[in-house]
Every structure is written in structure tokens, then in C-alpha cells.
């Protein structure tokens, strides 16, 4: 079968239908909607085609089929348009009909984020109703007010507009009353508007144009699934803190909308049903399950979930019906369906019913050994009837002698009876008839059985027999390997050796096997090596062989000393922020960790110079980041800071630089001030090299003219304590 849920062909088909006369288009639409029963856009197109020719009966019929499953605002607006048209000329009675239709509609899609226009339309419809005398007039007013008050607490795209309209409305009715009413509703409106903003984000994630197709695992589907899940969680959290009933209504609405798009996702159906069940409305949950079975008739999971719900609320007959449905007409029932039905009957109707059904099921062509095992365990564990269980196994053995798994299950059962005579007989019988390739597990279990039940002689004998059976050459078989001893003398997770002993043993065994084929061995070794490498999961997307620059082979270049066009002069923002941005991350991290200091601010320059003088332990790594950012020039020779050695290349880099010496940025100025301080406070020798001296002198000359401005150091400490404190 070709992909019947092909979206593209569906869209083309829909486009074709649009151009055809209604009689020809109808079968196309029916076919489309058969496949996509929740595709509101197709329904809308279909119904509009009928509306174009005023085919009222057909329209009504179509609406009755789609409206409740497709909670989509455009489709529903189409409906209201139709209703209004039909009732247009019917006077009061028609108006009443229309009003009811509006109510009905808002009841279903009134919580949609796009329902704003519908609310507005309803309100203007209500306002347009004729009112004869004062009493009618005031009644109409009350109705309009009520609708407004519902609309302004619904988080829709048009909530702000609606609020404004409402304010105007109240003011037009009575200025005195308006104030009280508006201030009463303002908080509710505010919270609805806040929720709207939040809600919109979730709605924006959703592709409203998607057609419901069975999951194929594409990324887009997964994204949509997640988007829906997020929206559902959001709505379930009752973000607006409204009463439970209204909140539940929104959740139901969201689930319904979700199922329009995630129609083929059993998990959504299940979640929806369980949510209903949890919030107390079992009947609603049952209805969801029934609908889910219509949507996904092949989903056994949903059927079992449904049956479970029915059974747990005591509706045994209903549950039984579901189980019987799962069995179909009996001939094509799966073994699992038989088993689950047996267990269900045993739970609900007792020993006799289960037994009876088992006897029937035995005759079914689809009855496998599983059914026997299942019933035997029911008889043994629930009915406490070992004799019956034994009989079942024995009866099954005739049929399933060739199934090693059945043999093992039977052996297990007998083990529980402690019936070692029969177990031994069973193994012997099975091994004599089973083909060699199926008997591996049975042999294993036999050996294990003898290890538990037998004496040393029988243990060794069975092991020997197993080896012979598998044709391991006589010499190897006769030499019992050390590994056999290990397997005999280990218990649960306790081992008579260390794990590398085991590695060695298996390695040695492998070597023995390959001793004679050296060439092959090499190839295999390489092969395994490759596989090993490949199996290491790569943690990130970095290509495995990234080559890193070796910066020690490069020159350090310090472009920071260029006149700052960006950092300082890009006005508008706080200069401190800009400085912080241009500071290396390591320094920023360090600054962020500094405590906030209330009280006197220490002179940063003095602190720095003291730091520079101190003899820190050499263990400090150059990577700390701070040292390398210290001004390079005056670093004293006594300092062990690895950064100080790093800072010399900065200067060589600078010397190469042709431009940018005439002006200095703030950063540079700090450096200079520091130079001043360190020299005065610590009386350090003047820099040795000519370049530094020149810079130093220049600094002297300019610093006097610039000290009037806030120095970098104090600006930094001031702002920092402000921001962290």
C-alpha cells in the first residue's frame, strides 16, 4: 500500500475539489475526510462549497459531523455565519436561535486564543437586538455585560481590545457604576492579559496547518508533539488561577484541539483519558477511550488501558466486552489476547471460568506455548493447584516438545515444586529430541540444575556431556578448563577470582582458539580495535581530530591599546558595562566573586601594588587569568607570578605596532596611574627599556590633565560594590 496519508496528494486533491462543481467534489471531500477526519480546513472548504449553492440540509449534516471534533475557530465562524443567515429573516425566534448558537459556539471554542473576534461578533450581535421598552433595554444591557465579563477574562489575541470596549460600554451605560465595575474586573483582566502573553508563546510554537498523520518520527513531528505537550502542561497548571471547572474546560479544549493534530498518537489519547479519570469524571474518560478506539482501532495498548479503567471501576461486563473484542472471532486472536482474557476471567469470574476458557483457547490455531505457561502459572500461583498446573505443563509438552523456552519454563515450575526427579527426566527427554542448535539454553540450565541439586559427580558428568554434545574436540573436552571451575564455584555476584583474572582467562581461551591462524588474528585485532574506537560516544559535535593552535609559537599582539572607538565612546550605555564587556571572561568571573564591601573602599592601586610585591606560592597557574591582565611594565623581578613573564611579549608586540600610540584609552591611563603609584609607594626602579621610559614620561605628562576625571580603578570598585551589594 502506498502512503495513504500523503499530505501533498491530499492538498492537491483538496485544491482540485475546490474547482469542481459540488456534486463531483463531494466524493473527493468524503474520501479526504475519511482519512483526515480532524482536518478542519478540509471540512471548512467542504461546507463552504455547499454554502455557495445554499444546500442547507447538506450543510447542517456536515456541521453535525465535524463541529464537535474540530474545535477550530474559522470553521466555527463559518457555522455562525450560516446560522445567522438562516435565521436572519425569522424575527425574534430567529434571533433567539442565533443567540443560542453563539452561546453553544463560545462554550466550545470560546477559550481559543483566536476567539476574540467571535466574542466581539457576539457582543455586537447582542447590541444590535431591538429593544422595545426600558425593561428589555436593561435586560439586554445585563446580557451584554455578562458576555463582556466572560470575554475579558479569556486570554485571547484581542483581550486588550475587548477590555477597552468593555470600559467604553460601562461608561456609556452609567459613569457612576462604571468605575466600580471596572475596578472590580481590572485585576481579573490583568491576570488574563498576563496569561495571554505566556499562552501566546506556546500557541506560536504550534503549526496550525498540520494534517493529522500517524507518527513517522520526523523531527518536525517531534517538535510539534513537544509543543503540544508544553501547551498542555501549561494549561493544566491553571496559570490564571481560575476556578477548577473553568480551568478543566480549558484543559479539555486544549486536549481536543491537540487531538485534531495528534489524532494518531495513542499517548495523547491515553493522557487525555487518564486526566479525565484523575479529575474524577470517569464517564468522560470512558468516552475518550471509545473515541480513541475509533481513531486507532489497531491499538491494543489503548484497548487494554480502556479495559483496565472499566474493570477498576467495577464495570466487569464492559471490560469483558473489550477483551472479547480483542479476541476477535477467536481464530485470529493473538496468544497474548488469550492470556490476558484468561487472567481477566480469573480475576473477575473465578477459577472455573478461566479454566473453561483455557480449554477453549487450547483448540485455537493461534494458541502457542505461552498460553499453556500462562494458564499453568494461574493455576499454580492463584488457584494454588500444583497438580492442575503440572497437568497443564505435561499436556503442553506433547505439543511443544520442540520449544526450548517451554522446556525451561516447565523446568522452572518443577524446580519450584522441588521435584528433582521429574526435572532430570524432563531435561533428558528434551535433550534427546531437541536439535542441537536449540538446546544451548537447556544444557546451560541442566548444568545449573545439577550444580544446585546434584552431587559433584553428577555435576561434572553433565558438564562433560554438554561439551561432548557441542563437539568440542575430545582433548579440550577432557581437560576441564579453569573457567568451568570458576563457573561452578561462583555464587550470585560472588566470584572466586578477580575480574582481570576473568579477562585473562577469556583472552587465553581466545588465543588458544586462534593460535594457529596468526594472520587472521592480526586482522581481527585491528577490526576490534576499530570497533572499540567507534563505540566511544563522542560527547560534543567537535570533529574528533580538532587541531589546536599552539599559541606559544606565536607573537602576542595587544590591540587593546588602540584608541577605543567602541569601548568607551559608544554612548548611551553605562561606560562601566562597556569596560566589563571588553574584559576577559576570566577576569569578569573573578570580579563577580569579589564580596560587596560596605564602608571604606581601599585604594585599588595600593592593593594591587601590595599584591605585586607579595611572594605568592609558585603553585599558582598562569592560567588564572588575572596576572596576565595586570599591567605588564612595572612587574617587579621579585614576583613569581607566571603572568609577569607573560607580559613581556606584550611589549614586544606593542613595539611592532605602527599605530595607536598618540592617544590612550582609559585602560591605558589606569596602567599609567598604576605606574605612578607603584613607583611612589613601593619606590621601584624605573623601567629599564627605552620604550617603557618614553611611555612612562608621556603618562606623567598626561596624567595630570586627566586625573580630574574618574579613574578607572575607583569607578570599577564603586560600580561593582553597587551592583553586587
Amino acid at each position: 500500500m502506498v502512503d495513504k496519508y500523503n499530505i501533498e496528494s491530499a492538498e492537491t486533491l483538496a485544491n482540485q475539489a475546490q474547482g469542481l462543481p459540488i456534486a463531483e467534489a463531494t466524493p473527493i471531500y468524503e474520501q479526504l475526510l475519511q482519512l483526515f477526519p480532524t482536518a478542519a480546513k478540509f471540512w471548512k472548504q467542504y461546507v463552504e462549497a455547499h454554502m455557495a449553492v445554499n444546500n442547507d440540509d447538506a450543510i447542517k449534516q456536515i456541521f453535525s459531523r465535524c463541529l464537535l471534533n474540530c474545535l477550530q475557530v474559522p470553521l466555527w465562524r463559518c457555522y455562525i455565519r450560516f446560522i445567522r443567515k438562516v435565521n436572519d429573516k425569522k424575527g425574534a425566534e430567529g434571533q433567539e436561535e442565533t443567540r443560542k448558537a453563539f452561546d453553544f459556539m463560545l462554550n466550545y471554542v470560546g477559550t481559543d486564543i483566536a476567539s476574540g473576534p467571535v466574542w466581539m461578533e457576539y457582543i455586537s450581535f447582542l447590541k444590535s437586538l431591538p429593544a422595545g421598552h426600558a425593561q428589555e433595554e436593561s435586560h439586554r444591557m445585563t446580557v451584554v455585560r455578562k458576555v463582556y465579563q466572560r470575554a475579558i477574562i479569556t486570554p485571547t489575541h484581542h483581550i486588550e481590545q475587548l477590555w477597552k470596549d468593555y470600559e467604553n460600554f460601562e461608561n456609556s451605560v452609567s459613569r457612576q457604576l462604571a468605575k466600580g465595575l471596572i475596578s472590580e474586573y481590572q485585576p481579573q483582566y490583568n491576570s488574563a492579559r498576563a496569561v495571554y502573553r505566556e499562552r501566546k508563546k506556546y500557541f506560536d510554537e504550534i503549526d496550525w496547518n498540520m494534517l493529522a498523520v500517524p507518527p513517522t518520527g520526523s523531527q518536525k513531528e517531534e517538535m510539534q508533539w513537544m509543543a503540544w505537550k508544553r501547551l498542555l502542561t501549561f494549561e493544566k497548571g491553571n496559570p490564571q488561577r481560575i476556578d477548577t471547572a473553568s480551568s478543566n474546560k480549558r484543559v479539555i479544549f486544549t486536549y481536543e484541539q491537540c487531538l485534531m493534530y495528534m489524532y494518531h498518537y495513542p499517548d495523547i489519547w491515553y493522557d487525555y483519558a487518564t486526566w479525565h479519570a484523575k479529575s474524577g469524571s470517569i464517564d468522560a474518560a470512558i468516552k475518550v477511550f471509545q473515541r480513541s478506539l475509533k481513531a486507532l482501532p489497531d491499538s491494543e495498548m489503548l484497548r487494554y488501558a480502556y479495559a483496565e479503567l472499566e474493570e477498576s471501576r467495577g464495570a466487569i461486563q464492559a471490560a469483558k466486552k473489550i477483551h472479547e473484542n480483542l479476541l476477535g472471532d477467536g481464530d485470529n486472536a493473538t496468544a497474548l489476547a488469550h492470556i490476558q482474557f484468561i487472567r481477566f476471567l480469573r480475576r473477575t469470574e473465578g477459577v472455573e471460568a478461566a479454566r473453561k476458557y483455557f480449554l477453549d483457547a487450547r483448540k485455537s490455531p493461534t494458541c502457542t506455548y505461552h498460553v499453556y505457561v500462562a494458564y499453568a502459572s494461574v493455576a499454580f500461583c492463584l488457584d494454588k493447584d500444583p497438580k492442575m498446573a503440572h497437568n497443564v505443563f505435561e499436556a503442553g509438552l506433547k505439543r511443544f516438545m520442540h520449544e526450548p523456552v517451554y522446556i525451561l519454563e516447565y523446568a522452572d515450575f518443577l524446580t519450584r515444586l522441588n521435584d528433582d526427579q521429574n526435572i532430570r527426566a524432563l531435561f533428558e527427554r528434551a535433550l534427546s529430541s531437541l536439535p542441537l542448535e536449540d538446546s544451548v539454553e537447556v544444557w546451560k540450565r541442566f548444568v545449573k540444575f545439577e550444580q544446585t541439586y546434584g552431587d559433584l559427580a553428577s555435576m561434572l558428568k553433565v558438564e562433560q556431556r554438554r561439551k561432548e554434545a557441542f563437539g568440542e574436540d575430545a582433548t579440550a573436552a577432557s581437560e576441564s578448563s579453569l573457567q568451568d571451575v570458576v563457573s561452578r564455584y561462583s555464587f550470585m555476584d560472588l566470584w572466586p577470582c578477580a575480574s582481570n583474572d576473568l579477562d585473562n582467562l577469556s583472552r587465553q581461551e581466545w588465543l588458544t582458539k586462534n593460535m594457529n591462524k596468526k594472520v587472521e588474528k592480526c586482522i581481527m585485532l585491528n577490526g576490534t580495535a576499530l570497533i572499540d574506537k567507534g563505540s566511544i560516544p563522542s560527547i560534543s559535535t567537535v570533529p574528533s581530530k580538532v587541531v589546536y593552535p599552539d599559541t606559544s609559537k606565536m607573537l602576542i599582539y595587544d590591540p587593546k591599546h588602540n584608541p577605543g572607538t567602541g569601548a568607551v565612546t559608544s554612548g548611551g550605555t553605562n561606560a562601566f558595562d562597556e569596560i566589563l564587556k571588553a574584559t576577559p571572561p576570566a577576569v569578569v568571573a573573578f570580579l563577580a566573586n569579589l564580596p560587596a564591601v560596605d564602608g571604606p573602599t581601599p585604594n585599588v592601586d595600593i592593593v594591587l601594588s601590595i599584591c605585586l610585591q607579595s611572594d605568592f606560592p609558585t603553585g599558582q597557574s598562569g592560567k588564572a587569568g588575572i596576572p596576565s591582565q595586570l599591567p605588564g611594565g612595572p612587574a617587579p623581578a621579585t614576583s613569581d607570578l607566571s603572568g609577569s613573564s607573560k607580559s613581556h611579549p606584550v611589549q614586544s608586540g606593542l613595539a611592532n605596532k605602527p599605530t595607536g600610540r598618540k592617544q590612550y584609552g582609559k585602560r591605558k591611563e589606569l596602567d599609567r596611574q598604576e605606574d605612578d603609584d607603584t613607583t611612589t609607594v613601593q619606590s621601584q626602579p624605573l623601567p629599564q627599556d627605552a620604550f617603557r621610559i618614553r611611555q612612562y614620561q608621556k603618562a606623567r605628562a598626561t596624567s595630570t590633565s586627566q586625573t580630574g576625571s574618574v579613574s578607572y580603578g575607583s569607578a570599577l570598585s564603586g560600580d561593582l560594590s553597587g551592583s553586587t551589594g
Partner: protein
Amino acid sequence: MLSHQLFIGDNALNGNSVFWCNSSLPDLKGSSKGFPKHETRHLSEHKNVARCARFSPDGRFVATGSADTSIKLFEVSKIKQMLLPDAKDGPVRSVVKTYYDHIQPVNDLDFHPQGTILVSGAKDQTIKFFDVSKTNAKRSYRVIQDTHNVRSVSFHPSGDFLLAGTDHAIPHLYDINTFQCYLSANVPDNSPNGAINQVRYSCTGAMYVTASKDGAIRLWDGITANCVRSITAAHGTAEATSAIFTRDQRFVLSCGKDSTIKLWEAGSGRLVKQYLGAVHTQLRCQAIFNATEEFILSIDELNNEVVIWDAMTTDIVAKWPSNHVGAPRWLEHSPVESAFISCGTDRSIRFWKEV
């Protein structure tokens, strides 16, 4: 991908270039593949010439930079949603964010290979870092002040280093954790007009390539930063405007204002292919690969067209009107799918997607 397809059955170490040179053999050459049809859509508008674009490595985001100093960030999934015929409740906004932080035109952009960081190089001599994951950040959170007009930026595949191609003839290598800037210790010939138009790392970081105004393509060692090969006059005396590596790092594709696009073997510096037939003499034209490296895309300024070559046969397989007013300045292809972006001198951004 490219070389893989080109060298099927050719395991000889040096046989590759022989194969390239023998392209006169018609039976080896084969016929050109067809480039799939694309649809194009106007995406957004800058307030001045749109100058550059870059996709994130996972193809989820694309950013564009403009002479109006702004950077726009788009989410590709939203762009695609926008292209759908009828989106609910009006058009989807594909622009996630617009950053106004530079004070002069933006020249180039790059995404961090793993993180959510976008960097931009601009004429204002700065490199700015934007955290794409922060929804309300409108400005950079980190700035590198360079000494020159930053014309091109390229992240090292580890994301720990960043190369900047500037008006300076030597690429600037930044350690982005310390902001320390490194230069090659020995630069061969200091060209007077060596401003770098583009710098790009190879995918392992073992090499990087620069295209400069003096028309040279230079290959640099990723470890020592030494210039290992200088293809002088790769585009004659005309500017070399773009240079990129193939994914296997064996070839470099360059584009120049001499209206040629050339494919070079990185190991030998030998010219292996030329893609001719498009005129680009004015703008900093880009020659790019599609996601599979089977095709090469560039601009014809004269006819205002996007021109597509079969990378293997060098035949022009398609010429499409650019739909921009005036020839677009930049092309950038998604690394993961059949979609690309064109940035126009008419200020607009267009998105192209296979139909």
C-alpha cells in the same frame, strides 16, 4: 562529499590531482547533475545594504549583518513556517531578534560551533559576542577591541579561539577565554595591500585560509599560525573576495573580482578547476558550496543572477534571477539542507529553499 564523489575508485595518493587535470577526458567527466528548483521569498529588510549572513552549524539559526550596523537573527524553522501558504493569525515573525550594538557597518558573522554564541566583526574595529539563547538581550555581552576594521571572523572548531581577518595583512587569532591576541611569528612578505577580505578555518582547525585584497590566497598552519602557502595573484591583480575549505580540507574554493571562481588543492597549491561565466567585479562576491558540496553558487553582477555550477564538471547548471534590486552582495548556504540566503544591496534578505 565533493572529493568523495570525484575520486571513486581512485585510491592513489597523488592520483587525485591527476584526475582533476585530466578533465579533458570526456568519458571521465560525465554529465552534470541538475540543481533542484528553489523557491525564494523576501524575508526581511535592513535599513541599509545587507552585507553578510551566516547559518549556525546545526542549521537552526541564520543571522544577517548590515551596513545599518544591525544584526538580525532568524530561526530557520520559523522562516519555513512563514513560507507555508496560510499561517494562522497572520504572518509568523521569523526574526527572532535584532541587535543594535555596532556603530559602523557589520562585515561578517560566525556562530560558536557548539554554543549559542554569535560573533560579529564590524568596521568599528570591534568583535562583539551575542548570546543567542538570551531572549531579551539586545546588545552584546562581550567585546573585543581590535586595532583594525574587522572584515571577517571565523571560529576555531573547538570554539576556544577566534580568527579575525582585518585591514591588517596578518590574521588575528584570539583566545576567547583570555581575549589575548596572537599573531604569526614569521610572516613572509608584508604586502602593502594585504587587507584580508575573508578568513576561514578548515573543519578540524588544522589550517585556515585567507583571501586578501592583493589578490592572494594564503594558507596558514592551524598550530603554528605560520603561512604555509601563499598563492600570490590567485586572482591576478584583482581582489580575492572569498576563500573556503571543502569539508575534507583538501581543496579551497576562492572567488575574486576578476570574475573567476577557482578550486585549489590545499596540499600542492595547484589550480584544479575554474568556474567561469559569471561577472563579479564590484562587490565582495562569495562563492559557496551547497550542503552536499556537489554544486557551487555565486553571483553574476551584470545580469543580477544567482549562478550555479556543477562542482565536478564546472558546467553552469542554473541561472536564476536574484529577485533583488541590483546584484546581491552575499550568499550563504545552510550546512544541513537545501536552502540558502541572499543579502542584497537593496537592503533586503531573501530565503531560498528547494521546492
